[in-house]
């Protein structure tokens, strides 16, 4: 079957199987799990994953063809995105055969939901400074601590957990990766409300949570190298989304604003021109990255340029729109006020603008690194988190 046929078949399958209208109603998790099972059975889940663990063993070409076909559908797969994009590939790459056997197929079939447990209140940009402890307890481990910014945790069956197992060595060298049972009674999931009033993330508290040693991923104290694998997959799954661009139906888009604003004012027109210029510049850059990716040139750290620019544009756009619309935009539940309250999210999630600039400077421009004061200090002597 050539690629065009593959893509056509996928499209036909999606037309018949993506839930819409009434089917899409009801318990969203049940809908998602049902769809995922059918997707798996049709051979479209884990397209590039090894056959031995439940994948299809096909190439990037088939995956790109499927993604191209799927672009016009709203797949209800959000709750599986962490598992499919990050934790699953980590198990495939770094897990034991027993772990692969146990976890991969249920993940691909949508039977189990995963979350990722790295960030902490005291360890955001600087994940390796995390303080959640895992201590030896017979042939297993006892975990205590707190994680934050965890999406889909309220639905998750399993979490990929990075915890500190040694405080006498520098921070990167005393971490270990585990799979933790999110149903353990010592795990508490609490929704985290963001500044827009929504709760898309959670805080997770671990109170004497037991983990059997079979659920350790990689060697003891070698968790950082496993985490790097996870973060690499995260970057790849983000860059696969590169080229998606902003939504035309966003309330602060040029299309929406021109319908409501007084464009007889030349200054309003010129502000909308500025918005057009910036949106188009980023849109074309995203398209170029996508064309490069299709041609087999992966964007790598240049994806961080696109992320930084999108974060800036999103905030610029909501700020501009409220300035143009004036007082009505901030009262009466106006969509532009809501857009403004959400706008900083992109700049604060997935690496701040400062972290993005560091990545671009270090990895795209190959500039010399900042001197590191935390490389060779035992963790217990290191300054971390928030302290005077």
């Amino acid at each position: 079957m050539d690629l065009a046929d593959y893509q056509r078949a996928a499209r036909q399958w999606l037309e018949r199987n993506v839930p819409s209208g009434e089917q899409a109603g009801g318990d969203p998790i049940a809908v998602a799990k049902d769809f995922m099972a059918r997707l798996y059975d049709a051979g479209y889940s884990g397209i590039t994953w090894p056959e031995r663990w439940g994948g299809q063993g096909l190439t990037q070409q088939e995956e790109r063809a499927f993604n191209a076909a799927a672009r016009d559908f709203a797949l209800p797969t959000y709750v599986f995105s962490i598992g499919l994009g990050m934790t699953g590939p980590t198990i495939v790459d770094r897990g034991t055969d027993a772990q692969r056997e146990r976890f991969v197929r249920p993940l691909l079939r949508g039977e189990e939901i995963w979350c990722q447990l790295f960030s902490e209140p005291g360890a955001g940009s600087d994940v390796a400074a995390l303080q959640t402890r895992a201590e030896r307890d017979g042939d297993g481990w006892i975990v205590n601590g707190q994680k934050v910014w965890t999406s889909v945790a309220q639905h998750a069956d399993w979490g990929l957990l990075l915890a500190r197992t040694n405080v006498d060595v520098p921070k990167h060298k005393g971490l270990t990766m585990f799979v933790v049972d999110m149903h353990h009674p010592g795990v508490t999931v609490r929704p985290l409300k963001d500044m827009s009033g929504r709760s898309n993330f959670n805080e997770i508290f671990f109170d004497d949570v037991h983990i059997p040693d079979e659920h350790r991923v990689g060697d003891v104290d070698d968790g950082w190298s496993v985490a790097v694998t996870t973060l690499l997959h995260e970057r790849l799954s983000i860059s696969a989304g590169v080229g998606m661009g902003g939504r035309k139906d966003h309330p602060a888009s040029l299309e929406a604003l021109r319908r409501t604003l007084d464009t007889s004012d030349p200054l309003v027109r010129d502000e909308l021109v500025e918005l057009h210029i910036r949106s188009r510049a980023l849109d074309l850059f995203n398209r170029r990255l996508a064309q490069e990716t299709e041609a087999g040139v992966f964007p790598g750290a240049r994806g961080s340029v696109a992320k930084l620019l999108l974060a800036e544009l999103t905030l610029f756009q909501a700020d501009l729109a409220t300035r143009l619309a004036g007082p009505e935009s901030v009262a009466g539940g106006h969509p532009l006020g809501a857009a403004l309250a959400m706008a900083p999210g992109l700049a604060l999630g997935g690496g701040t603008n400062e972290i993005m600039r560091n990545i671009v400077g270090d990895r795209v421009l190959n500039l010399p690194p900042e001197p590191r004061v935390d490389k060779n200090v035992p963790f217990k002597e290191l300054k971390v988190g928030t302290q005077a």
Partner: protein
Amino acid sequence: MKLVLSQEQRELRAAVRDFLAAASPPGKARQGYDPQVYARLNGELGLSGLIVGEEYGGAGAGFAELAVALEETGAVLLPGPFLATVFATIALTRAPDKELLSGIAEGRLSATLAGDGVTAGGDGLTGTLPRVLSGMEADVLLVTAGSGLYAVDLTGPGVTRTPLDTLDITRGQAGIVLDGAPGRLLGEPGDEVADLVAVALAAEQLGVMRAALDAIVAYAKIRVAFGRYIGSYQGVKHKLADMHGKLEQAESIVRYAAWAADEAADELPGAAALAQAYVGRACFEVARDHLLLYGGIGYTWEHDAHLYFKRAKTDEVLLGPPRIHRARIAELLEL
């Protein structure tokens, strides 16, 4: 031109600051209007009567003093009808009414001021005011109909008030519909009311931006990333330095505009438009950047950063789309 505070003004600032630090710290702002704090603010400190003439029981102070007070109420994001009452008081100083001014000076009455949209007829005032600052909390509405300024009892007949879902959760607005509401004609205040309102708002904005900058500077000294305080990174330090530059200029402009309000009527229109055009923008930019510099925690509901961000945006557009202030400058410069 007087751009530095006098000894008395510094003492006023310290008194208001100390009072608010105890009675209404920023963290309390999300709980909304506390009438008790409001009563003490006006009773113990006499803030509501600051610019009310002594003949009405006020302190007879000027805009230089008012700006000092508003900077402090802005810094703690004081909820409730204080700013709205200041706006109304400004209008009343140009169309004096003993009952209202003394009520405000005593702290008995709160008020708010609204622009056009209302007509006066034989059977009272009629019209719709879609967004009135502190419209739910204020006792009295001052509203312009034709060239006259009218006072309307907001708890009286013919008045329908609806609270609005506002971006700024610390200080509300209301939709008000007047349907034959009794209105008392107070006089015909001139154009300068709008200028003075602009100056007062800029003073609050100065406080908002100063407090936001102070907060993130303090955080940059205690938050660690990669083994260093984040304030030691130039990425953070240089941004904070630029924010400080905006603050210095904003303060200079507010002092100038307050001086013009008190002593140089011919410079007031230009100073007022400058104050809104510069300070309104700078305040939002500083509040925005302070939120971003917090990192993830700044995005949470529990943290106060978003309260400043939202107040700053709400203030920026409170008097209309900001381009109106720039258009005013162009007009005054005869460009």
